[in-house]
């Protein structure tokens, strides 16, 4: 009795190992033929959601130096300095310390002029800590790069959509032509 069971287990082991291997190979084969889900990072980037909270983006010409954002900041990482000449503002600095910032977006809501926004730039590496304290003014440093990237992304998106539309139109035209032929 014992022996027959062992023999059965032996055959079953062989059967199971062959079968499970084939099942696994089928799965990996399917994955191999599908399109990779990764992107070639520095060249391409994954689409970023609209409400993504990245490095801030300041519309300097709208800002009135009211300090509402600095007061709202729970960790006091926003500092700004400007001199008023009548109605004109002369900006000296508007710094944000990204070593402290936790990207909570609380600085955005109280702004009376709606001039500080959370941007889409997230890649942000330096060799020196002091560089994390950076100026949002006049397209300086990272802010400038972030703005350029945003513009590029917008242009690329628009171009892509235009191409898609053109293709769809061409296709639609061709289909329409086909239909016309059929009609004739």
């Amino acid at each position: 009795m014992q022996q027959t069971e062992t023999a059965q287990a032996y055959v079953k082991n062989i059967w199971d190992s062959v079968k499970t291997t084939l099942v696994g190979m089928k799965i990996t084969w399917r994955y191999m033929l599908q399109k990779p889900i990764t992107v070639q990072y520095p060249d391409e980037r994954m689409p970023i959601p609209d409400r993504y909270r990245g490095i801030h983006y300041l519309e300097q010409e709208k800002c009135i130096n009211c300090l509402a954002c600095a007061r709202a900041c729970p960790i006091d990482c926003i500092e700004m300095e400007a001199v008023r000449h009548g109605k004109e503002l002369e900006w000296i600095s508007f710094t944000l310390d990204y070593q402290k910032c936790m990207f909570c977006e609380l600085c955005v809501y109280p702004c009376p002029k709606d001039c500080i926004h959370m941007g889409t730039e997230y890649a942000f590496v330096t060799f020196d800590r002091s560089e994390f304290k950076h100026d949002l003014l006049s397209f300086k440093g990272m802010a400038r790069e972030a703005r350029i990237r945003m513009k590029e992304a917008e242009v690329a998106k628009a171009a892509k959509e235009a191409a898609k539309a053109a293709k769809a139109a061409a296709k639609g035209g061709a289909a329409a032509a086909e239909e016309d032929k059929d009609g004739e």
Partner: protein
Amino acid sequence: MTPALALVQAAAPVEVGSGSNAFLEGLVAALGAYLPMWALWMGAAVTGVAIVMGLISLIAMFSVWLERKVAGHIQCRYGPMYVGWHGWLQSIADGVKLLLKEDMIPRDADRMLFMLAPALVLAAIVAAMAAYPLAPGVFFADIDLGVFFVIAMSSMTTIGVVMAGWASNSKWTVFGAMREAAQVVAYEIPLGVALLVPVMVAGTLNLREASDLQSDWYGMGWFMFKNPFMLPAFVLYFIAALAETKRAPFDLPEAESELVAGFMTEYSGIRWSFFFMEEYAAMFLMSALAAVFFLGGFESPLTWAAGEFFGRELFVAGANGATELNLQAIPYHAVAGITLLLKTFAGIFLMMWLRWTLPRVRVDQVMTMGYKYLTPLALVCALGAALWEAGKQALLG
């Protein structure tokens, strides 16, 4: 005489009568007046080894790239993409990097053995590679004991691996070497017995002759289809070959998660890359044996058609009795060589596919599989195939 022609003549098949030493004889005749005999022989030997080494490097480079691409796509990513089209030059970049790396030898290592081990491993695989036939009429060495030679030489690499593991003077490397030795001892038996099945059907150990025997049925007379025991034998051979070449799921000698890199933990730079080249060359050879003895070798309908159309003899008797190169037969030989290469790389691809599918098995599972499953099954296959062939001969005469 152009070098290519000299190479072809060097590899002239035995039946032409020139033997495999035609190149050497030609060289001796041409240069004998200027150089001493030993220099000529040394030169010829170095040339031969250089050609085989070049072939091995090319195979290893292509296989590494293929492996990385296969691994990438199975894991839904791209793999190398930047160096050349889809990263096809990646291996060259890696090779340059390896050449430039510091060559380190641990202080407490056995220096001589440590330096000798990669050389021994590579030398063994170069020797084994000499038996690979490039085309029906073009090969490095036409060995009557071909299979035996290849298996013996690829087992030699184990000695190098054990040597490397011991000489490194590290726990990880010694464990890797021990596992390698145990694994190879366990899997040599099913490997040899499973290969015995097609050898029995063919009645020859010579790779080229075995391939010729499969040219019937319009190029589809593969041994695989000629005997019902051949398919299980092929599966058994392939599993044993995986273990023999230290490939996943049997990559215990270099199990990354347990032993860092197993027996090659202490190696760096070009010495390390020798082990790497050996692994890919061994994969190539094992796949080549599978292709020749199970999957029809050079033969396919296309090869058969090319043979019928262009003629098969690469060397024919000329006007005044001298052997001449038959240029018309070159397309046939090219098609045949490419067919074998494709079949071999199909085997390599299967090995890679399995590697990225199966998890690594445990040490005791490896031993159980080798001794309790593969060996008896291989013996059953060999016995069955022998009885089948005997019965066929008794019935059909």
